[in-house]
């Protein structure tokens, strides 16, 4: 009797750990181990073919920080990231707010915004890179037909960033819109109703009720967009697949992940590539924390507003 009781208690206490352990074991094997191993590689003079060389401490990091190619890749990454993340989130929030309205054939509209996400990025990139082709592309042909100057989409730095951001936006806007929509659906209708009775218009209700209420989801969307944006690879890799330098002949749109791939597999410098991987990891963490803090302050200040408003209303009564 007592024994069974003990077993029951042990079961109660430790079973949960057993149940969740498959994830953590897997994480340790395929997540944590590579992370640590990458760090070990990054402090050695490691050639891809030659294997581990001498221990060099932080020399790989120093060399990368002094390399113009590394800074070029960071600049490109941030440029493409900002060009995609900001419009993407603004538009996604707008679309979500529209889909949240009482419209006909709701499911149809909601599912259609997700279609771009279902298409594989490789296919998206092939289609867009053809459209953005400089000599034979759809867009330049249209510009030419309108007697406008054609744009060097694959040669000039800013146009190429615009083109790549377009692909990213096309693919991810609908996805983010659906997530935000789900959060908006969870906002109690009574809040909207009472605000409407108080005379708040649609725009006022959106900023004062919808946005603060979906704050946690917003933070999630911003952070995942940040991680995705800083790790961008497929789109710039396939934008000009025939280019022998990944990211454009003059590295016009070589992002950091492309750069580290180039370092590792074309130039065979595994140590330096691992150092870049680690620096990117740290950068993503820093940006993630900054995002979290910023979105936290925005939302909490509007929280304060809200509670103040409720307080004044109570006071009036």
């Amino acid at each position, binding site marked *: 009797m007592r024994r069974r009781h003990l077993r029951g208690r042990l079961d109660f206490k430790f079973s949960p750990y057993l149940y969740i352990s498959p994830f953590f074991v897997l994480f340790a*094997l395929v997540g944590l181990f590579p992370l640590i191993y990458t760090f070990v590689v990054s402090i050695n003079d490691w050639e891809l073919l030659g294997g581990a060389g001498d221990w060099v401490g932080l020399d790989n990091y120093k060399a990368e920080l002094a390399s113009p190619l590394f800074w070029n890749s960071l600049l490109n990454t941030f440029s493409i990231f900002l060009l995609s993340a900001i419009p993407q989130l603004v538009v996604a929030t707008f679309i979500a707010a529209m889909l949240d309205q009482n419209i006909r054939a709701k499911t149809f509209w909601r599912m259609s915004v997700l279609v771009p996400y279902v298409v594989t990025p490789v296919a998206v990139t092939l289609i867009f890179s053809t459209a953005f082709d400089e000599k034979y592309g759809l867009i330049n042909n249209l510009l030419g037909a309108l007697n406008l100057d054609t744009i060097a989409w694959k040669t000039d730095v800013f146009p190429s960033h615009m083109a790549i951001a377009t692909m990213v936006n096309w693919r991810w806007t609908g996805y983010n819109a659906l997530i935000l929509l789900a959060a908006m659906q969870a906002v109690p209708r009574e809040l909207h109703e009472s605000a409407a009775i108080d005379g708040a218009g649609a725009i006022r209700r959106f900023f004062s009720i919808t946005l603060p209420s979906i704050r946690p989801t917003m933070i999630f969307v911003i952070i995942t967009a940040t991680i995705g944006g800083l790790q961008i690879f497929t789109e710039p890799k396939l934008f000009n697949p025939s280019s022998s330098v990944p990211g454009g002949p003059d590295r016009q749109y070589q992002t950091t992940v492309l750069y580290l791939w180039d370092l590792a597999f074309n130039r065979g410098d595994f140590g330096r590539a691992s150092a870049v991987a680690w620096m990117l990891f740290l950068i993503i963490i820093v940006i993630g924390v900054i995002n979290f803090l910023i979105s936290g302050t925005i939302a909490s200040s509007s929280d304060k507003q809200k509670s103040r408003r409720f307080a004044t209303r109570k006071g009036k009564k």
Partner: protein
Amino acid sequence: MKSSRTTRLAKVVALTSSIALLAAGCSSGASKDAAQPASADNPVTLTVTTFGTQGLDPLYKQYEKDNPGVTIEATNIDTGGNALTDWKTKQAAGAGLPDVQAVEEGWLGQVMTVSDSFTDLNEYGASDISGDWVDWKVKQATDADGRIIGYGTDIGPMGLCYNSKLFKAAGLPSDRDKVAELFGGEDATWDDFFSVGEDYVKKADKAFYDQSGFVWNAMVNQLDEGYYTADGSLNIDSNAELRQRWDQLSDAASKGLSSGQTQWDWGKGQAFVDGSFAVMPCPGWMLGNVKGQVEGAGGNVSDGWDFADVFPGGPANWGGAFLTVPSTSKHPAEAAKLAQYLTNAASQATSFEEAGAFPSNLEAQKSKAVTGENDLTKFFNGAPIGEILGHRAEGVKAQYKGADDSVIQEQVFGPATIAIDKGTDGEAAWNSALSTLQELEIK
């Protein structure tokens, strides 16, 4: 209390992870007897990794039929570039390499830095049959210690693809023998090539060749010493011949000879049918590409592409592959035997029929299958492609390729050739190539 809880937690984690490890633990059954030849009683599975279109598929089936007990598992990777990444990753990991690995001439420099991780085929009789191939092909696959690490498959002797219709419209000869003469015949030089080009540009008011990158590849490949000297040191800044050729090329580009097309893209083949350019340096394997591009853009024989038995600056080779046996193979004898079979005269003739890969095997070069008619000869206006390529292969020299040869070709001079096509002057493009060389820290 707290410490005991953590130890218990640790035990749980340790237990579960050891279960996972046990489950993941591989049951690597050792091969029955690696030294014994394969037979029905001693079955052997050989893995083969190739890339592009090498035309080996029917040969695998034949080999399995002729050698009971042998099963071939073939993997074909779409492009040479992806195959290189695949090989490098597996080579670096020290595992996962196949029994027979195809290696591209372009990455031979990198392969040679680890040549001791390949089986020396001399142990399996390579030296006895090395006379079967063109001599420079064997030389390419021989490392500094005299080990032969690969059997040659195809080679890429270069001739000139030209568009007879465009030549005619510009008032130039269009017959392939006359065209060969126009470019200087046996003594064709790059000066001849570019002066014909200037003439064409004047008369036709169109660009002459598709883009400068391929021309540059050919110019570099045919030098005695390219980006590296024969003893393996970097040879760019002080290479007067290289610089002289660069000036020739950038001068031509500045005069509008280059159409500035995107390499390997050509507007999805459009540029081959809309008259954007009239000539292109063509190694044997490029002919299939030209045909594919023209057909992809809706063109056909009537677009007028032809192939002339001439090449500026003398014999040149671009590309070609080797079949190697990585030393990780558990059945090196069987693998070497298969590699030898896949590259013998009859097999190379079959590969040529299948994929247009021009044989490096001397006997295969003369076989009916190579010199006769096929789809390609029909497409190129009846040009005797096999004969021309055999002729173009004579006199090619094996240039020493350093470890970073392909990086220099692609990342240093790739952007520079694009720059001169877009109007940058030759001096500036050369200097920016040198500074890229420094940024990439190539030694």
